């Protein structure tokens, strides 16, 4: 009888990192649970490139090269809802990162994945919309 080997793909649970969580990856990785894999969306890459162009980070953080980058889910209604919720819950007149938050938040909600973020307004909005949020202190 021949031996038959079966390859089983084990899907590791994924967690989305917000842009600030990539920048503070040393803090963010402590919020990853055993076997979880951190992923980022193309919006995060765009925001990091923006910060590089403005001289706020020297280059893309090394950790980016090791993270899986996923396409953004384009769901305009969810994007609008996320932005609206952030504006509703925030005291700020000018909320930074609203456009990117709408896109990243849509991925969190549509893919039903947890997110790690240090943005309190964003975290509050996503939690209010039913997402699992792990907050950077």
């Amino acid at each position, binding site marked *: 009888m021949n031996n038959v080997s079966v390859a089983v793909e084990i899907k590791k649970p994924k967690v989305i990192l*917000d*842009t*600030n969580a990539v*920048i*503070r*990856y*040393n*803090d963010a990785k402590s919020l990853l649970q055993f076997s979880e894999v951190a992923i980022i969306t193309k919006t995060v890459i765009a*925001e990091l490139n*923006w*910060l590089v162009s403005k*001289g*706020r*980070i*020297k*280059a*893309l*953080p*090394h*950790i980016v090269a090791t993270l899986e980058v996923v396409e953004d889910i384009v769901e305009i209604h969810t994007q609008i809802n996320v932005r609206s919720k952030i504006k509703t819950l925030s*005291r*700020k007149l*000018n*909320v*930074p*990162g*609203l*456009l*990117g*938050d709408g896109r990243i938040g849509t991925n969190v909600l549509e893919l039903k994945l947890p997110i790690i*973020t*240090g*943005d*309190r*307004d*964003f975290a509050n909005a996503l939690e209010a919309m039913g997402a699992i949020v792990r907050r*950077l*202190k």
Partner: protein
Amino acid sequence: MMEIGSFDFLTQSLLRLGSWKITRAANFDTFVAVDVNRNFQFNFKASDLLTDSCLLYYAFDAPGERVVLINAEGSCVYLLSLEEQCLKIVTNLNRSRFDFYNPGGLYHLALVQVDEDLLVIYEGGIVYLELKDRLKVRWSYQHQYLDWAFDKIEDGLVWYQSGQDERWGYRLADGKCIQLQQLGTRSNV
């Protein structure tokens, strides 16, 4: 012994520090401090203590009845002397106003006790505050890079790491920067 923590004046109403209770008025710029043991109270005004964010970080020096207060997104380090009933600005932090085009959540603040003193570590730099006797800045360092992250305190140095895996330290005694080094190698300190 210092008590370090954070307090959100938007969702919580009463900050307890030893025998003191601090609350804010509805206008967000007047505060009332009450010493419950002595049944004594005073008001202090700080119009920019609670600006965009209502999250305050504090370090309470109980014997001296002094509180270091910093808004999570604010530029001023305040000293509230409960004994002398006054609030003053100790130093300013190198903080940018992040606008619409920037990603959110770029502010970061941590207070770390070092013996009897306090380190203020934030996204734009680091400040060493001496708390003995009169509170003063021993040294400070400012930078523009958001991915320069505090790592640990070891060998009398405050260790930092960048997004490019470079490591370096600031000497606690005088703030001298010990040169950048690659991860995995240790330079002579």
